[in-house]
C-alpha cells in the first residue's frame, strides 16, 4: 500500500455528519476510504459523500482574490483586497453608520467561523448578521424556543431505531439524509410503524405503513385533526401533561372543532386515515416525530412547528429513549451556526438581543464599552435583500448564494446590484459572486480545521487534511485579517480555530466542556449541552425537565390559516419546492460534481399523469412554469408520486427561486417556499 | 409426477413450540442417505426447506406456500419455476435454471435459498416421494398439518364456538375482535 495516511474528516454535505477518511499523500488527497469503525455511519456514504472529493481539486476553484474593474475581473493580492475591503467598510460606517453594513455567515462554515463573523458584525456595531438557517429552520427556533426552551433535536438520530412509531411530517430523510435512514429502516425491521405526511410519495413514503398525501400548506389542519382525535379518544398521556406541561386547556379548546372530516376537506386526506394515524402515533409505547422543510418553510411555519411539538408533548413522546422530536437540519453546520448566534435576533447560546443582561454579559466578555450592542434585532436575510441599496450599503457574504436560495431571485439580483460594496467569499464563482465587487477564494471543508454540529447536537471536529489551492484561505483567517485591517485587532487575538473554540467554551455555556482535544478523541463527537470538561454530553434532552424557566413545556393553541396563495382559475396548480438526493442546496458544489450532475443535469418539474394528459405533456417535454412573479423553463417528469394539482421542482437550480413567493412568517421571517400558485405552458420541442 | 393433487402443508401457529423437529426431518428427508445417522456427516450438509423463526415473541415455521400466482414463478427469466396445474405445486426444473437467484430475492417469505450443489436454488418440493411430508410427520404438536385436515379442523372449532355462543357463551364478535384464533 502507498504511504497515504488516512485523515478522518466530516462530510461537508448534510447534517448527519458522516465520517470519511481522506488518503493524503505528500500534500494531496489521493483517494477516499470508508470509515468502517465510525459509530456515526459505519463506513456508509451517500452519493454526495462519494462526490465530496470532486470539488477539492475542481478546475473552477477560485485560486486568488479578484476585484471587479471596468475591464472585467482583475486578480489582486490579498493585501490589496483586504485593504480595499477595510477602506470601503470604514467609508460606509462613517457615512451611513454601522447598521448600513450586513453580514451573511454560512451554515457550511465551522462553529468558529460563524462565531467570528457574528462577533465582527457586533463589534463593528450592527446586529445585521444572518445565515441560511433563516430559510430553513428559523420557525423551529421561534416555535420550539418558547415551548421547550431549545430549538434543536431532542434525541440522537440513532434513537430512531428504538421507536415503535415514526411520524414524518414534511420530512424526507431517505432522500436528504440517506445514511441516517438506516435507523428508520432498522426500526421498521423491528416492526415499527412508519407514518409519512407529505404531498409527494417520497422515498421515505415508499416504506411507509400509512402515507398521508396532503395538499401543500395544510399540515396544520392535519395536526389539529390528529390532536382532536387524541383528545376525543382520551389517548393523551395525562400524567405527562400534568407533570411536565402547562397550557393544555387552551390547546384542547382550540382543537375542539377540528375533527377529521373538517381536516379531510382541507388536506385531501381521507378522515379514516387521519384517525388511524393519530391512533398509531398516540398508542405506540415509544414514538418519534420528525419534521423538516415541509413544516418550517411556510407563512404558518412557526404555528405548524408548535403543532408538532404539541402533538409530541400531549402524547408524552418527548425526552426518553426512542421518543423524541426531530427538527432535521439540512446543512452540515446549520445547528452550529445557530448555536453561535449568527442570527440577527440572537446572540451566541440563543440569548436574545433584546435581553439587557445578555448584552451586558457579551459587552464585558468581548471587552466592548457598555451599551455598544444595540437593543433592536438586526435585519434577516430576506430583509437585508429588500433593504440592499437603500438602508444597507455594504454586504459581506461568506459561503452564501442568495441569488439562488432566496425567493424572488430577480428582485434579489436587482437589489444586490444596488449595493455600494459587496464582498463574496466562496469556493466557486457562484451566481452571487458574479454581482460582487470583490471575490475572495475560500478553503473547502478538508482544507481547514474546525468543529461542526450535526442535527442531533453532536459537535464533531473535522481536521485539516490538505492545503487550500492557490492563495485560498480558510474563512476564519479571512475574517480575522479583515478585523485587523479594520483596526479591531484587539477583539480578535486568535491564532487558530482551537483558540476561537476556547473562547466559545467560555461564552456559550452549552459548549462549556467541548474542547478541541476532547473532540478529537470522541469518536462520534459530544452532544451539547456539555457544561464542563468532565460532562459526557447529553444525547437525550428534557429527560426530567424542560429548558424553560419553570422547567415545564408550554402548549400552544392551534388555529388554522390557509396558505397565502391558493390555486385559482388562472393559476390552477400548487407548486412546491424541495430537495433531491443528488443535489445540495444552491447546487454550487453538486452542479459542479460530475458524478452527481451527470445523473441529474436538468431542472425538472414533477407532474401527475392526469394533469400532464390535460396539458398535453409527455415525459421529458420542455415546459414553462408561470407564477405571478415570473416564469421558468423545466423538463416535465410525469410521475404518479405527486398529488393531482400539485407540482414539485427542486430548488438546487438557479431558476427555481425566481418564481417562489416572498411572503414571510411574521415571527420567524421565513419565506413561503412550499406553496405558489402556478400555471403550466407546453413548449415545442423535446427536452434535452 | 403422478397427476393427483398434492395437498399443501398448513401451519397452526398457536401450536408451534419452536422445537425445530421439522427442520431436522426436512434435512434428513432431503439428504442423500435419507437416514439421520448418515445425513449428519454428509458433505455438503443437507439443507432445510422449512425455517422456524422467533417472530414477535412466538415461534413460527416458514415454508413454501406454493403460491398460485407466485412471485418466484413470475420473476424467473427462464421459466425454471412453474406452477404445476395437476399437483397445484410450484415445481423447480433445474435443467432450465441459470442460477441467477432472482427467485431467492423475490420470494416475500424468504423460503427459497441458494443451493449447495443440489440444484442452483433449494425450495420445498412437498416431499415428492412421500404421501405425508417429513415435516408433518415429525411435528410433535401437530402444528404442521395437511390442507384438508387443517381446514376441516378449523371449521369444526368455529362451529363449536358458534354453538357455545348460541347457548349464551361469549359473543362471537368479542372473540374475533380479541384475536384469539
Amino acid at each position, binding site marked *: 500500500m502507498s504511504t497515504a495516511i488516512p485523515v478522518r474528516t466530516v462530510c461537508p454535505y448534510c447534517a448527519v455528519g458522516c465520517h470519511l477518511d481522506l488518503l493524503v499523500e505528500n500534500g494531496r488527497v489521493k483517494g477516499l476510504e470508508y470509515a468502517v469503525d465510525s459509530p456515526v455511519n459505519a463506513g456508509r456514504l451517500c452519493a454526495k459523500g462519494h462526490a465530496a472529493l470532486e470539488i477539492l481539486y475542481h478546475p473552477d476553484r477560485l485560486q486568488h482574490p479578484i476585484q471587479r474593474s471596468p475591464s472585467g475581473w482583475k486578480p489582486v493580492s490579498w493585501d490589496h483586497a483586504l485593504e480595499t475591503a477595510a477602506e470601503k467598510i470604514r467609508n460606509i460606517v462613517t457615512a451611513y453608520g454601522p447598521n448600513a453594513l450586513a453580514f451573511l455567515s454560512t451554515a457550511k462554515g465551522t462553529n468558529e467561523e460563524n462565531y467570528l463573523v457574528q462577533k465582527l458584525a457586533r463589534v463593528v456595531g450592527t446586529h445585521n448578521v444572518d445565515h441560511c438557517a433563516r430559510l430553513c429552520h428559523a420557525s423551529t427556533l421561534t416555535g420550539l424556543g418558547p415551548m421547550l426552551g431549545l430549538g434543536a433535536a431532542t434525541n440522537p438520530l440513532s434513537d430512531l431505531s428504538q421507536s415503535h412509531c415514526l411520524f414524518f411530517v414534511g420530512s424526507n430523510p431517505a432522500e436528504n439524509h440517506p445514511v441516517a435512514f438506516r435507523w428508520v429502516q432498522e426500526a421498521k425491521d423491528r416492526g415499527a410503524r412508519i407514518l409519512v405526511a407529505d404531498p409527494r*410519495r417520497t422515498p421515505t413514503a415508499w416504506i411507509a405503513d400509512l402515507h398521508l*398525501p396532503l395538499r401543500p400548506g395544510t399540515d396544520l389542519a392535519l395536526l389539529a385533526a390528529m390532536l382532536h382525535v387524541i383528545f376525543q379518544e382520551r389517548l393523551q398521556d395525562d400524567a405527562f401533561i400534568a407533570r411536565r406541561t402547562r397550557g393544555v386547556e387552551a390547546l384542547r379548546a382550540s382543537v375542539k372543532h377540528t375533527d377529521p372530516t373538517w381536516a379531510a376537506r382541507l388536506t385531501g386526506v381521507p378522515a379514516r386515515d387521519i384517525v388511524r394515524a393519530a391512533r398509531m402515533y398516540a398508542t405506540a409505547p415509544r414514538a418519534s416525530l420528525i419534521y423538516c422543510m415541509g413544516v418550517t418553510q411556510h407563512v404558518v411555519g412557526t404555528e405548524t412547528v408548535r403543532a408538532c411539538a404539541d402533538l409530541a408533548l400531549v402524547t408524552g413522546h418527548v425526552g426518553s429513549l426512542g421518543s423524541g422530536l426531530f427538527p432535521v437540519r439540512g446543512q452540515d453546520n446549520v445547528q452550529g451556526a445557530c448555536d453561535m448566534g449568527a442570527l440577527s435576533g440572537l446572540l451566541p447560546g440563543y440569548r436574545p438581543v433584546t435581553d439587557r443582561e445578555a448584552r451586558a454579559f457579551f459587552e464585558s466578555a468581548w471587552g466592548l464599552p457598555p451599551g455598544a450592542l444595540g437593543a433592536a434585532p438586526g435585519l434577516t436575510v430576506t430583509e437585508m435583500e429588500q433593504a440592499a441599496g437603500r438602508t444597507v450599503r455594504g454586504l459581506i457574504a461568506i459561503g452564501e448564494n442568495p441569488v439562488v436560495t432566496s425567493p424572488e431571485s430577480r428582485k434579489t439580483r436587482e437589489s444586490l446590484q444596488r449595493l455600494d460594496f459587496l464582498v463574496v467569499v466562496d469556493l466557486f464563482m457562484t451566481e452571487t459572486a458574479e454581482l460582487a465587487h470583490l471575490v475572495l477564494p475560500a478553503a473547502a471543508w478538508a482544507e481547514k480545521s474546525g468543529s461542526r454540529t450535526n442535527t442531533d447536537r453532536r459537535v464533531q471536529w473535522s481536521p485539516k487534511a490538505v492545503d487550500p489551492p492557490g492563495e485560498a484561505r480558510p474563512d476564519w483567517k479571512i475574517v480575522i485579517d479583515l478585523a485587523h485591517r479594520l483596526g479591531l485587532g484587539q477583539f480578535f487575538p486568535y491564532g487558530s480555530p482551537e483558540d476561537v473554540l476556547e473562547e466559545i467554551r467560555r461564552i456559550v455555556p452549552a459548549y462549556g466542556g467541548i474542547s478541541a482535544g476532547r473532540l478529537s478523541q470522541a469518536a462520534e463527537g459530544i452532544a451539547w449541552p456539555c457544561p464542563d470538561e468532565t460532562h459526557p454530553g447529553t444525547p437525550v434532552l428534557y429527560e426530567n425537565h424542560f429548558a424553560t424557566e419553570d422547567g415545564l413545556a408550554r402548549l400552544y393553541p392551534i388555529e388554522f390559516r390557509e396558505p397565502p396563495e391558493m390555486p385559482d382559475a388562472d393559476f390552477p396548480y400548487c407548486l412546491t419546492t424541495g430537495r433531491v438526493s443528488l443535489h445540495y442546496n444552491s447546487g454550487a458544489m453538486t452542479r459542479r460534481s460530475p458524478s452527481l450532475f451527470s445523473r441529474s443535469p436538468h431542472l425538472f418539474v414533477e407532474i*401527475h*399523469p*392526469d394533469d400532464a394528459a390535460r396539458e398535453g405533456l409527455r415525459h421529458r417535454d420542455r415546459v414553462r412554469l408561470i407564477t405571478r412573479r415570473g416564469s421558468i423553463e423545466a423538463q416535465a417528469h410525469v*410521475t*404518479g*408520486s*405527486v*398529488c*393531482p394539482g400539485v407540482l414539485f421542482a427542486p430548488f438546487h437550480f438557479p431558476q427555481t427561486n425566481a418564481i417562489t413567493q416572498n411572503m414571510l412568517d411574521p415571527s420567524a421571517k421565513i419565506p413561503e417556499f412550499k406553496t405558489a400558485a402556478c400555471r403550466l405552458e407546453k413548449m415545442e420541442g423535446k427536452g434535452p | 409426477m403422478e397427476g393427483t393433487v398434492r395437498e399443501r402443508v398448513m401451519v397452526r401457529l398457536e401450536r408451534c413450540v419452536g422445537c425445530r423437529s421439522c427442520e431436522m426431518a426436512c434435512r434428513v428427508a432431503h439428504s442423500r442417505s435419507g437416514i439421520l445417522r448418515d445425513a449428519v456427516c454428509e458433505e455438503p450438509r443437507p439443507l432445510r426447506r422449512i425455517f422456524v423463526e422467533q417472530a414477535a415473541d412466538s415461534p413460527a415455521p416458514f415454508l413454501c406456500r406454493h403460491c398460485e400466482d407466485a*412471485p*418466484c*414463478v*413470475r*420473476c424467473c*427469466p*427462464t*421459466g*425454471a419455476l412453474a406452477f404445476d396445474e395437476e399437483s397445484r405445486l410450484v415445481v423447480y426444473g433445474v*435443467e*432450465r435454471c*441459470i442460477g441467477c437467484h*432472482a427467485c431467492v*430475492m*423475490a420470494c*416475500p417469505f424468504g423460503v427459497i435459498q441458494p443451493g449447495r450443489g443440489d440444484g442452483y436454488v433449494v425450495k420445498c418440493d412437498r416431499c415428492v416421494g412421500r404421501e405425508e411430508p417429513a415435516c408433518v410427520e415429525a411435528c410433535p404438536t401437530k402444528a404442521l398439518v395437511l390442507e384438508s385436515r387443517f381446514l376441516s379442523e378449523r371449521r369444526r372449532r368455529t362451529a363449536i364456538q358458534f354453538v357455545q355462543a348460541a347457548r349464551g357463551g361469549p359473543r362471537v364478535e368479542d372473540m374475533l375482535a380479541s384475536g384469539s384464533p
Partner: protein
Amino acid sequence: MRETPTRQRLIIDFEKCCGCFACAAACPEKRIAFSDQGTERRFSAPGVCSGECETCRKVCPVDAIVLEPFPLEDDECHPPALTWTLPLVRCRRCGEPFTTEKIRRMTMEKLTMLLEAPDAVSDWVPVCLACRRIEEAHRVRTATRTLPDPLR
C-alpha cells in the same frame, strides 16, 4: 513494423463472419476497423498484411479468417482492401439496432442447447441491453406486487 520479407493475404469468409469485435480488438496495429451506421455494421480490413502475425485468425470465434503467404516481389497487383457489412438487428422494445443478426442467432442456438428451453431464451436475446434492464426491473416489481399506482 518494418517491411518483413514475407507478407500474408487475408481471405475472409463474409458468410461465416458473425460481426463480433474480436479481430478488430485484437489486431495489434488496429488495421481492422468497424463502425455501426444505421442498421448495418461496416467492417474494413487490409487486403494484405505483415508477415508472421496471426492474431486475427486465432481470435475469430467462427474461424472466418484465412491467411495465405503472399509473394513479396509481386507488388504490382495489390489485393484490394476488404470491406463487408452485416445487417444489425433492432431491439424488439425500443427499435435501436444493437447486435448483428448472426450473433443473435448464434446466441439463441447456444443458449437453447444450454437450457433445452427455446421459449425461455427467446424473450431476452432480441432485446437490447438497456431494455433488458428495464424489463427485468419491471418483471421483478410486478412479480412482487410493488408497482406503484399513481396517487389518486
